């Protein structure tokens, strides 16, 4: 199979959807003539022109609200936040308009938008640029959230997100854009991954590591160390989609291993992992041999210093330590 970077796979997904549906339009800061701050949209303006790939001013509330309004009329805007952290200046549009308009209109309006961009720490850009908002947005009924970890997943999921008739908030990761992986050839058919399906990225039996986004990569690395150095064999479940959430897959791995470590780049108050822990203890209480543990970011705004930033984030070392702290019988 072909190998693509995460960035290329994502771009290919966008490109295919631009080709499939003339109502799909990409909007965002620097995405057209500049080819994207992180080059995700490179070449798309050249190929598709001013109408389909649109540079916007630095007015996130304005242009995202504009996309929501246009979507009610049948346009399908895919909007880039240069960093997901900039959600803060567009929050009302994201959680009051996009999430509520269908409900408040008794189903008369709908809002088929995608908002996408990187949502992660680890790049030395400091606290205001390193928010991790998967859990924050998944908390709003009316919204869907996903967070793919691999090139194949990012392509398959962006295509589902664009075709979905509800608002989907699509959270990428600047530190994954350059990662490579196999991605099916378009010649072999339309490659789409539905929202709401988790992916068991590694099979084990002793413990379940449940993660999403870049934490999946860390969990996989930790699993190899655990196996090689400690003989502990981990299931690694990649949630991929946060809402809808593949609860069945979560319960399946818990029932297999009886021990769980959640890996989540969020700060520890809340986040996706608090919700997963809550669900597991509620729905698989008797299957648990030990409390569910979490590896989150250390509980402070995100630090700049490159000497220490990775220690604030989940990383393989912290995951291994957490697993080992669980005193296997």
């Amino acid at each position, binding site marked *: 199979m072909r190998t693509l970077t995460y960035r290329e796979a994502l771009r290919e997904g966008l490109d295919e959807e631009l080709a499939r549906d003339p109502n799909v339009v990409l909007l965002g800061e620097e995405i057209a003539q500049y080819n994207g701050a992180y080059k995700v949209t490179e070449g798309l303006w050249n190929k598709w022109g001013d109408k389909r790939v649109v540079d916007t001013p630095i007015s996130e509330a304005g*242009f995202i609200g504009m996309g929501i*309004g246009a979507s009610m*009329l049948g346009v399908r805007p895919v909007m880039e936040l240069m960093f997901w952290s900039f959600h803060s200046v567009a929050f009302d549009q994201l959680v009051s*308009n996009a999430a509520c308009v*269908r409900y408040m209109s008794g189903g*008369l309006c709908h809002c088929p938008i995608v908002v996408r961009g990187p949502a992660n720490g680890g790049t030395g850009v400091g606290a205001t640029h390193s928010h991790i908002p998967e859990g924050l947005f998944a908390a709003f009924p009316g919204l869907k959230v996903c967070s793919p970890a691999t090139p194949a997943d990012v392509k398959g999921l962006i295509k589902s997100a664009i075709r979905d008739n509800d608002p989907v908030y699509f959270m990428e990761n600047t530190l994954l854009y350059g990662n490579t992986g196999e991605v099916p050839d378009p010649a072999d058919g339309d490659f789409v991954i539905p929202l709401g399906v988790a992916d068991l990225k590694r099979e084990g039996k002793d413990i379940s590591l449940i993660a999403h986004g870049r934490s999946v990569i860390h969990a996989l690395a930790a699993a190899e160390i655990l196996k090689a150095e400690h003989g502990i064999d981990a299931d690694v479940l990649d949630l991929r*989609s946060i809402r*809808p*959430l593949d609860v069945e897959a979560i319960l399946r791995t818990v029932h297999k291993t009886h021990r769980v470590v959640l890996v989540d780049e969020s700060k520890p108050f809340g986040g996706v992992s608090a919700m997963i822990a809550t669900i597991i203890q509620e729905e698989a209480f008797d299957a648990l041999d030990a409390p569910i543990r979490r590896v989150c970011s250390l509980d402070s705004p995100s630090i700049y210093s490159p000497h220490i930033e990775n220690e604030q984030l989940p990383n393989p070392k912290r995951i291994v330590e957490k697993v080992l702290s669980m005193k296997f019988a």
Partner: protein
Amino acid sequence: MLQASPASLDFANSPINQALTAGDKVNLYKQMVRIRRFEQASLKYYNAGRMAGFLHLYIGQEAVAVGTISLGGADDHFITAYRDHGHALAVGMSMDECMAEMFGKQTGCSKGKGGSMHFFAPDKNYWGGHGIVGGQTPLGLGLAYGLKYLGREGCCLCYLGDGAVNQGAYHESLNLAALFDIPVIYVIENNGYSMGTSQKRSSAYQSCLAERAEAYGIEWDVINGSDIYEVRAKTHIAMERARKQHQPSVIEIDTYRYYGHSVADANHKKYRTPEEIENYKLNHDPISVFRTRLVAEGVLTNEQAESISKDAAAEAARSVKFAEESAAPTVADIGTDVYWESDHQTAASKIGRHFFNDTAVQ
């Protein structure tokens, strides 16, 4: 820049108004009266405890919604804030569905899910009813952007209040509208107050609020909202500019609300004088002004006006009955209209958990 017209100008003579038949004129009158009677009925039942939340009455402002919306063609769209009953009736929504919405019934336009602030009728190009001050301004921009994107010759009228102009989203929208040549018209319904705060206490400006449009090179105008002819004549210009040239405008329509900000506003005679309110009712009421005018034109008799009023009151009373007799939503209804995919039972809706109710597990 458009110039504010001398007070003496008679907008009855502008082509868009000359094109009105006698029947058209009577119909405009009738629409204004229907709004007023509808709201009077809703006030009565709100006070009787039949509705929840807020009730923001439009009474006094009727010429704005009726005048502007009367200019709408098949591809012209409308969106406003929470003071949304007038626009709803003007676009052709029935009193029944509107009253039932306020009563929180299944038969309401939003199935009882939105309430007074959230009337919608996309089939009539009406996109709400929005409660967050200024929050609708980027949506209106988007509807207009959508029209242009889809190649339709139309425009979007996006209404906002004199207090809403101080929300940042509105300014972002103005810049985008001018930069992208978007056929949106921001209609500032200036009733002089945002809740208990007068225009002067909430906004810094030169001659008026619409003039802020100059900052973005956007055309603007000021309109006397008691004269439906003037509302139509000047709004028409802005709409044509939008439809034909994709140019946005800001128009400020001076108007007044007789009641408080919402019915819960017990202070409304404190922040403005009774004389101010009386003066408006006596000399600037858009319905009286138009009635006098139509009678003078020989288009309407006082008897006809009375019967229009009676009919409207009867229609409103019927809508109350309709609302009262309609069924309330059930607990199961709480869970619908959240996701399009779930409502349509699509394949996607069956994959993964979408809802996290505690009742899911027992």
